[in-house]
């Protein structure tokens, strides 16, 4: 990067500036860069989480469709809604709903505490 506006006006200026520019010896790295990289925080998992969320959602939809494939007369959206209501029907029974709620909480907890770990992908 050369100075853009250093225009020595006199020969004396030019000699002095040349002298001042002489000491430009670069410092050797000596492991400095590695030390800096070691200080960086763990990688972000934002992208990996998105991909994982998409995979879970796709799996859930596929599971619902496979589990309740008998609504051929209905539109796809209606069929999906019916399938979803069938899948969530056990929640209407109190004990089953409690257990499913606990499982859901466990999954949410696993997602939230996994942030400090390295990406799975």
């Amino acid at each position, binding site marked *: 990067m050369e100075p853009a*506006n*250093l225009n020595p006006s006199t020969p004396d200026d030019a*000699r002095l500036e040349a002298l*001042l520019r002489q000491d430009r010896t670069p410092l050797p790295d000596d492991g400095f860069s590695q030390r800096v990289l070691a*200080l960086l925080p763990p*990688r972000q998992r934002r992208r990996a989480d998105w991909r994982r969320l998409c995979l879970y959602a796709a799996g859930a939809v596929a599971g619902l469709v496979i589990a309740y494939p008998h609504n051929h007369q209905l539109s796809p959206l209606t069929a999906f809604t019916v399938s979803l209501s069938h899948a969530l029907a056990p929640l209407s029974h109190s004990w089953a709903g409690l257990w499913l709620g606990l499982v859901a909480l466990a999954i949410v907890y696993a997602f939230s505490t996994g942030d400090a770990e390295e990406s799975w992908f």
Partner: protein
Amino acid sequence: MTDSELIARVLVDDDRAAFGTLVRRHQSAVRRFLLHLANGDAALADDLAQETFLQAYLGLARFHGESEFLTWLLGIARNYYRNARRRQRDTTALPEHELKDESIPSQPRSADLHHDLAAALHQLSPDQQTAVHLCYQQGLSHAEAAVVLDCPLGTVKTHLARAKDELRHLLAAWNPQI
């Protein structure tokens, strides 16, 4: 690969190798600048340089390319040095620019012009020393030095003009070489 391309890789993919390339490319300039500010304390300069690069990594999204990446880094380095000096002013004395009473020989003795130049530089004010360091030893333009020093362009030009006048006076014994 340019700095901009490397920065884009870091921002988009969190590419550590790209950031490592940026560190290797600019570590010398940043460490030399901090070495200059810390008056030769290499350990302090390296500590502050590490903090500078870490902060640069964490705040990379705020770099919009208005200046060169190195200019931005040197600005962070200067802020870190000033903060460190402020924190420790009341405890341990951090090395800083001080006017040193190093005498310049009235007549040139040996051919040790560089020694006399170093002594003369130490007699400049801290702002003049830093302006000279950035513009001549780091090769920044006056405008880039103004960004690093967070001062108007005219102030940098004034520091340089006065520094050169002072150096010519202090090194008068070396005329007509200077």
